[in-house]
């Protein structure tokens, strides 16, 4: 059974990733944000600010540093939104 909440967060992440993914590379839960999508380190933090505002959560920078894939970002948002 698909995890609808995670799917919704994944879709939101994809939407906010668009401006940082000009070559329109395919995005999956396994995509490395820096390694596959080549989003630069500062842009990752800009993306995170947009997600913080959308979900009204705080994602501390030390947590962002440990997040490597889109899936890990989705999981972190889900947990923080539930707290």
């Amino acid at each position, binding site marked *: 059974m698909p995890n609808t909440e995670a799917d919704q967060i994944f879709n939101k992440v994809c939407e906010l990733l668009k401006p940082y993914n000009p070559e329109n590379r395919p995005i999956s839960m396994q995509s490395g944000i820096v390694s596959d999508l080549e989003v630069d380190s500062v842009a990752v933090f800009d993306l995170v600010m947009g997600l913080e505002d959308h979900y009204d959560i705080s994602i501390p920078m030390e947590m962002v*540093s440990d997040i490597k894939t889109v899936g890990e970002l989705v999981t972190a948002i889900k947990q923080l939104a539930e707290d």
Partner: protein
Amino acid sequence: MPLFDKYGSIESRVGLVKKLIGKDPLGVEFDDIMGRTRGRIGNRDIILAGTNNYLGLTFDEDCMEAAKAAIDAHGTGTTGSRVANGTYTEHVELEKALADHFGMASCIVFSTGYQTNLAAISGLTGKDDIIFMDADAHACIIDGTRLSEASTIRFRHNSPEDLDKRMSRVKEKKGDFFVIIEGLYSMFGDIAPIDEFLDVTHRHGGYLYIDEAHSYGVFGETGCGLAEAQGVMDKVDFIAGTFSKSLASIGGFCVSKHPEFEIARKVMRPYLFTASPTPSNVSAALAAVGKINSPIGDALRENIWERAKQLHKGLDDLGYDLCADPSPVIAARRPNEAICAMEWNWLLENGLYVNIAVPPGTPQSTSLLRISLSAAHTEDDVKQIIEKFAQLKDVQGDLMADMMKLAG
């Protein structure tokens, strides 16, 4: 070598730029530095307009004499940290001079500007504290937060409203709130609304820390920086700065209105475990503080602001997309990294040294030609800088053709 494989993408990026312009723009070697605004590469004289030598004091006779006298009196090095090897009279004199200049209770000097932020940020914040950091903060501020046990939240650049929102979002405040901004931002040359940040920070019961590395010396009635210029210096908790810009040396400082700041000397690792600044570095900076807080400083500030307005208008008239209002830092947005590198190289080959700044070192993933002015620049120097940028517009077609040929 497998050890270096992780740098493959950086190597190919550097390689591409080298292929385009035949050199590494982040590795410029001058054959001579003849003065505050002139250098030489080979047989070519270069106007220096990317040195952050804002007040041009690096060749000031009194600063040079002070540095030489300190070497004669106390030697070339301190051979270790102040904790292990002792404090020199020069350290004490400079800390007193800076505390007096700011009207603050406490001042600690550090070995570099970078270490100042590493030390102060990591030393002043702890496990349960939360750091709120401006999105465009310099790398040394980011590294300072990494060295801290505190959690760090980034807020939108120069937005007190966004800071307010993010501070309000914290549900349970276990420790202190510590807000970090800069005065003059080094890439775009834009300035912070310090009074508004103070209001938000103190309303949430937090402390405000301002890095005035690029604004000390050039802003404010006595040159203390932007907090002084905005009339709120007495309310700011901590102000950090560097010796390597207006103070014409190398090192850094942090002043505080809180006398308890002194205890931080016992916990700041980048202070405890590194060699203290040398007598000559400290003495040159001390002489420069005296100049900044004097009619000489007033005259230097008057000139750098005149030159800033002259250059800003000149480049604006040429149609360059400038990042901010006139200030000692003037940056023009360029379409991309390759064009920026070609243009930067053309300027250098034609006798003008400016900075090239590219992502991730820049805000909004921009590529910039960045100029830092000096009070030592004359009206004619700035005319020449504007003329070079005008010529650069004229050769755009040739540069693009060269680029296409090389890329092809």
